[in-house]
């Protein structure tokens, strides 16, 4: 079972060097314990572009689809047998990156 752990940023601050070190250590642990699938940091919402091609004519809009004070600044995809394990791992992630995180299951099949 895989879970998306989104990192929620509520300031305009980027990760500090200390936070980066903690995140690296956390990632190493995820890999060593076999919970690692993928992780990445994201550019700020101002770097987003929304595209809507449902009508067959691509509409391009500058900026994120939702303007919000809180936004996703990065994410992990982790492997965990159930939500209890996923929440424990996510708690470690939140501590490491010093931000709140949201946990959502990836739908299987």
């Amino acid at each position: 079972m895989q879970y998306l752990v989104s990192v929620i940023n509520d300031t305009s601050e980027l990760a500090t060097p200390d936070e980066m070190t903690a995140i690296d250590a956390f990632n190493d642990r995820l890999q060593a314990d076999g919970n690692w699938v993928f992780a990445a940091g994201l550019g700020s919402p101002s770097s987003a572009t929304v595209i809507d091609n449902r009508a067959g004519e691509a509409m391009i809009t500058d900026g994120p689809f939702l303007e919000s004070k809180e936004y996703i600044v990065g994410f992990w995809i982790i492997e965990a047998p159930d939500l209890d394990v996923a929440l424990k791992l996510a708690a470690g992630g939140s501590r490491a990156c010093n931000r709140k995180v949201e946990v959502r299951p990836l739908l299987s099949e």
Partner: protein
Amino acid sequence: MIDVREAITRAHHEEWARVVAALTRRFGDLDIAEEATAEAFATAVERWPADGIPPSPGGWLTTTAKRIAIDRIRRESKRDDKQKQAQMLYDDDPAEPPGAIDDERLRLIFTCCHPALAMQTRVALTLRMVGGLTVPEIARAFLVQETAMEQRITRAKAKIKTARIPYRVPSADDLPARMSGVLTVLFLVFNEGYLATGPGTDPLRHDLTEEAIRLTRLIRTLMPHDGEVAGLLALMLLTQARRTARVSASGQLIALGEQDRGTWDTALIAEGHRLVRERLAARVAPGRYQILAAINAVHTSARDARDTDWSQVVALYDQLVRIDPSPVIALNRAIAVAEIDGPQVALSTVDRLEGKLAGYHAYHAARADLLRRLGRSQESREAYDKAIELAGNTAETAYLTRRRDQLG
């Protein structure tokens, strides 16, 4: 006929959670377990009057429910085999069996009270799955529309499946925190019954208090060595023992000091006192429910309000403040202090809590009472006004109004 109805009611009380739990384990799906169990009870209502009560009602219900579930799964698996498989609830046996506490019903309780579910949802799900209350009953108890309650429960079951909330008893590391979460749910159900909110409701909801006691008793059977479980049960029993003395015929709340102690339920008090003594004998640092139970034991030991051992009450509150330094506990401690050191000393403590408790009716009620005792009628009247404005319980509002109107 009467016997059959009684047998069904008893089976519903004793077997509902067991049947739901056994089916959830067997089929890995709360939804199927709930529906099949409800249908098995409906079948019992139909069949038992004609066929007689089976020698083992629980066994009969479980077998019937399993057959219903299998039928339903067969019917559905023809349609969407793969999807069903994918949605099976996650269930694994811990490597080390938890021994004495290995009961299917515990898994069910811990799943329903999972911290990833909203508190209201945990309450509703526990009452439905473990307590066997119907959705309309739960909706009525919490004054929400049936459809809204149905939706809340359906969403919770979907989240349990999709996010894979496990169906198991937490590991020893997590057990204390998770157990305290379960007790919070039960205490919330009890309090809602004991001090129901809303202008149109009965001030006391015995269905909810009794259900909370029944579920706490169940957990006590499953975890007999947990001190806080014993403490919460004792606290509920000692509170419930005073239920008839607590509200007057005209629907007014009667304060502890003015209650007719002759109407207290002596059997419940004896049972509560036994539990409190058991915890004292255990010589383990008590948690908050055990201390609250002990405070209630002191009150219920006094045959006359004037015989109350207030220094003991204050000492217990001191203990409680150390583990739970919340302003509400400080307020209750101050009320006890007034009985020893007088209303002036208590009032100065209470006044210091204003910043944190200005929106809490009990804060204003306590101030009103202390000011009244100090002869400061005008200030007392204002505090009563504020308390009445904030109180949500009809009996409490009536009580506060009477006290205000008695001021000279």
